[in-house]
């Protein structure tokens, strides 16, 4: 039953991500990744170990492949900036979330 809830949560948040990325290309992916990474840090810090929320909802909300596709479609210095902001920002965001909890 947990597995069903997990995939349903991921499916729902994937639709939210899709909506964000079609409305705001590139920025949308980065924002959902930053928000999802920060949120997973807060949840983990508070001892919430529900796979439905972490692997499901936040796993579906955030994406590595979408970021790769965005970077692949970009040219010039924006590309390095996007990569750096996603990699450093998401890691720092999760860490910040851990500290806040």
């Amino acid at each position: 039953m947990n597995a069903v809830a997990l995939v349903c949560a991921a499916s729902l948040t994937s639709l939210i991500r899709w909506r964000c990325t079609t409305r705001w290309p590139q920025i949308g992916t980065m924002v959902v990744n930053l928000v999802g990474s920060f949120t997973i840090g807060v949840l983990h810090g508070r001892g919430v170990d529900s796979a439905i929320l972490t692997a499901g909802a936040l796993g579906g909300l955030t994406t590595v492949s979408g970021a790769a596709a965005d970077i692949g479609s970009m040219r010039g210095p924006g590309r390095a900036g996007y990569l750096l902001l996603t990699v450093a920002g998401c890691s720092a965001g999760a860490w910040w979330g851990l500290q806040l909890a």
Partner: protein
Amino acid sequence: MTSSIRARSWAAVAISAAIGAALRWAAVGLIGDRPGLLLCNVLGCGVIGYAVAQGSGPWLTAGLCGALTSCSAIALQVAVDFDEGHYATAAGWLLATVLLGGAVFSASTRLIPPGAHR
């Protein structure tokens, strides 16, 4: 886009995202948290590279690849390693994800000869 086509797109993304998340969950359960996540993230980058080059629909890009990969999970893994002072481990898994994901994405976009798609 008519409302029925739009509804079908939403349903396709929702169903393929459920499959992507189930595959990630299975991979993590079968080969472990870290290798399972790395495999899914790298595989997702490879599939999306091919999908973008081929002009595939959102069911494959936003749905399957989007849910197969997880940025929040790798970010948490790095943050916890860093917090516990395992700096080399944190950097190693992060670099492996970025470098392998980037390399596989780049290679997969070249699988289709220019002008041979759509």
